[in-house]
């Protein structure tokens, strides 16, 4: 064999990807990919896939694609989590080696934050926000598709690392100097840098898109203070993304220059400064955790009033507290490294600013509870997730305030106490919120409801498993167990708590399996939503049929009240959303275009070239990017017109035309 071929094989398949479990997964993935190809070919669905999904710019479909991808990533990140917990169930276990353990916790964190939580709420934004503000689409539909495909190809790039070339192993925040070439040779870290960079560009674009959509495309009469709270949360999340992601871009970019082109930003030699990375990363990273939690706050602020049949208590206070959290979130990043020696003055400032965040968050907690107070509560699945969220998030928030106490943090830092804290807020806040939103808006996406009984079981398992997993970890932290230990000796008294935690994790896993079963079962036995308003909702998306037609609103509604649809129902004026045949006007909707997927695919090719330092491939991908951008730029004719007759027909079929 040629020597370059041997070299190539060694590069693509280093020993760390030749472990039996990884080869097993590789075979499984290849077979499923083949099965999908065969299925699509046999059922002649390639054209359908291309026309209806891959080239679509419709926000509702993009939202669905985001959510499907996020659920797949939840599965991947969840399997990682179960692998970690299996290793720790007893002392001295060596189910994985230390290198593989490091890779698995790195991919677990990175996948869950960047490729599960963010796309999941981007999906819900896409599904709900334009419908809630009475818009026909987002401000920049093609850019929206670009965002999705950049995320999708970024996620693909990150996920192939474990079978080709090796996974990153420097943790989800990837601190130098360990992430530098000197200590971390191989391509894993390059995958991390490039994949996050590509999907990060998409996230910034999503931020721009939703900010402009919400500021510019609201229905007449919907002032800022009449917007549903979920729309507010999308607005502040977008703002956070805009100002938080560029520092991440810089942190990742500079690390890449260090690794691939020999610069010395964060190296130990030549006066590089690893601390700079920690600052840049957390200037992004702390707003990022609010980016993750704000949408969940928004979802709960929709779910609670709907299922309590009461308007949200303290709407203005809710808005002000969202804005306060947004503002404060930029002034707390140093609390991630009190131990790095910034001095007591700096540490106290950041400790206090961190504690201040508890105030607006507490206001929100009370407001949700007061909304339920005296309401007629229906215990639907979305509401169960919200009820589970309140105690869980309170515990997580309180442990956060404990961590903000600087002196005490010297004890907790890098221990399992921290692990317990942030899972408490990210799973108990973000994931509970996302799943609540998933069940809540599911009928709007697909036109059928998820089975409630199975949903309650999924919730029960997930919720119980959650508490069993993470409460023992607080105590493990007190007993001195540090995070990221690949294994631990017997005789430290950690065995029992770890075993409980692992059992809890598997119970959560069962909850996820029930969720998937719930989706599959409900698809086969659909409970159709014929009214478009299955929950007796309050906001404009429920005034539309489920799923909404391509153009959303045949006539843009006029808004007079905060809960626009509810007030129409109370006044008995629901017919106001129906059309008279003479009111139909031609509607412009954006045309499908393959440009987004081609652009993102070019980014993928170029990034893969960068990962392996194959410069020809990087240049090829770069040329693809330039060509796609140029081609996209000269397409001025991006809309198509739906003629009034076809709109009228669609609306007639949906029973939304006055006789």
């Amino acid at each position: 064999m040629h020597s370059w071929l041997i070299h190539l094989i060694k590069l693509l398949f280093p020993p760390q990807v030749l472990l039996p479990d990884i080869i097993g997964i590789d075979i499984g993935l290849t077979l499923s990919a083949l099965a999908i190809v065969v299925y699509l070919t046999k059922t002649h669905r390639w054209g359908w896939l291309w026309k209806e999904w891959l080239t679509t710019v419709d926000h509702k479909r993009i939202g669905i694609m985001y959510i499907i991808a996020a659920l797949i990533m939840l599965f991947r990140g969840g399997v990682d989590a179960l692998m970690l917990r299996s290793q720790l169930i007893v002392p001295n276990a060596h189910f994985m080696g230390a290198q593989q353990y490091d890779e698995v916790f790195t991919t677990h964190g990175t996948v869950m934050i960047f490729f599960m939580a963010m796309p999941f709420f981007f999906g819900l934004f896409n599904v709900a926000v334009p419908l809630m503000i009475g818009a026909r689409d987002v401000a920049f539909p093609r850019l929206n598709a670009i965002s999705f495909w950049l995320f999708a190809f970024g996620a693909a790039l990150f996920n192939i690392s474990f079978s080709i070339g090796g996974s990153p192993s420097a943790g989800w925040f990837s601190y130098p100097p360990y992430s530098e070439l000197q200590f971390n040779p191989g391509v894993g870290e390059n995958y991390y840098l490039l994949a996050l960079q590509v999907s990060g560009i998409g996230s910034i674009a999503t931020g721009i898109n939703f900010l402009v959509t919400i500021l510019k495309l609201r229905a007449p009469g919907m002032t800022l203070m009449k917007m549903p709270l979920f729309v507010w949360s999308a607005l502040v999340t977008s703002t956070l993304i805009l100002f938080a992601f560029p520092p991440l871009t810089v942190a990742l970019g500079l690390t890449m220059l260090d690794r691939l082109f020999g610069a010395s930003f964060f190296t130990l030699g030549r006066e590089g400064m690893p601390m700079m990375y920690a600052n840049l990363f957390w200037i992004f990273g702390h707003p990022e955790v609010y980016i993750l939690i704000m949408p969940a706050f928004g979802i709960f602020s929709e779910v609670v009033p709907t299922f309590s049949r009461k308007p949200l208590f303290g709407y203005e206070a809710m808005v002000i507290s969202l804005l306060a959290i947004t503002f404060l979130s930029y002034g707390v990043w140093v609390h991630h490294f009190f131990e790095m020696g910034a001095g007591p003055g700096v540490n106290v400032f950041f400790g206090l600013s961190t504690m201040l965040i508890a105030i607006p968050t507490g206001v929100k907690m009370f407001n949700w509870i007061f909304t339920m107070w005296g309401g007629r509560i229906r215990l639907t699945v979305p509401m169960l997730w919200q009820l589970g969220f309140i105690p869980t998030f309170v515990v997580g928030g309180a442990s956060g305030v404990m961590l903000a106490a600087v002196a005490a943090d010297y004890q907790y830092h890098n221990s399992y106490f921290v692990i317990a804290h942030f899972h408490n807020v990210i799973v108990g806040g973000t994931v509970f919120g996302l799943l609540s939103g998933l069940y809540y808006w599911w009928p709007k996406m697909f036109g059928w409801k998820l089975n409630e009984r199975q949903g309650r079981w999924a919730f029960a398992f997930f919720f119980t498993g959650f508490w069993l997993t993470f409460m023992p970890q607080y105590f493990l932290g007190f007993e001195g167990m540090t995070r990221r230990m690949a294994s631990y000796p017997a005789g430290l008294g950690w065995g029992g708590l770890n075993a409980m935690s692992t059992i809890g994790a598997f119970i959560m896993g069962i909850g996820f399996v029930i969720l998937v079963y719930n989706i599959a079962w409900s698809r086969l036995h659909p409970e159709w939503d014929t009214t478009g308003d299955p929950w007796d909702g309050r906001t404009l998306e429920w005034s539309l049929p489920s799923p909404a037609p391509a153009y959303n609103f045949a006539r843009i509604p006029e808004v007079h009240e905060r809960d626009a649809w509810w007030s129409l129902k109370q006044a008995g004026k629901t017919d106001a959303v129906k059309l008279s045949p003479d009111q139909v006007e031609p509607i412009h909707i954006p045309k499908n275009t393959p440009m987004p997927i081609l652009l993102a695919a070019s980014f993928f090719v170029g990034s893969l070239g960068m990962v392996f330092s194959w410069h020809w491939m990087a240049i090829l991908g770069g040329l693809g990017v330039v060509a796609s951008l140029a081609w996209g730029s000269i397409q001025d004719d991006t809309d198509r017109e739906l003629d009034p007759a076809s709109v009228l027909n669609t609306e007639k079929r949906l029973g939304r035309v006055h006789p």
Partner: protein
Amino acid sequence: MNNPIGALPAEFENTHEGVKILGFWVFLATDVMLFASLFAVYVVYRSRVALGPTPAQIFRLGPVLAETLILLTSSFTVSLSLYAARTSHLKAAIAWLVVTLVLGATFVSLEIHEFVTDVLAGHTWHQSAFLSSFFTLVGTHGSHVTFGIGWAILLTLELAFRGLTVANRRKLFSFALYWHFLDIVWIFLFSVVYLAGVMT
């Protein structure tokens, strides 16, 4: 279609195009954050020269002053192009845009010349954290200008083939915003990097 003074320019009259301009402003805000981060890195790293040269040893103000004047002039010419478009003089708009991109290209070639001189003298960014941050900060601005030149070429062709359509007016306006933005970033670069550098 002359625009009377005081009337809204065509690119703002059309709501679709107006929304795109707002989107572009928001994009520029993210770019401000990008440069702010790089400036922060540079300011911290500027004294971390390791065994390499200090700023004062490698900066030569002459060429940099020329770059500054060229870029400032190009900011003026892009405004002339926009003015011509607003008064519906297509040929003048194209001509001033071409002048702008030629000035931009001159700027970039002077910058490349500066970089090449440094590198040939052995001052690559392998030498120190200072040089890494210097080349990255100035280079990021330079690659923005290079991207802008590519954009201006495309825009020139679009203007030549399609004329002053509303979409083209909006693109020209966004391009002018972008170009002015790069100019402002350069003013900061000139003061924070070069002026402060030769004075230490």
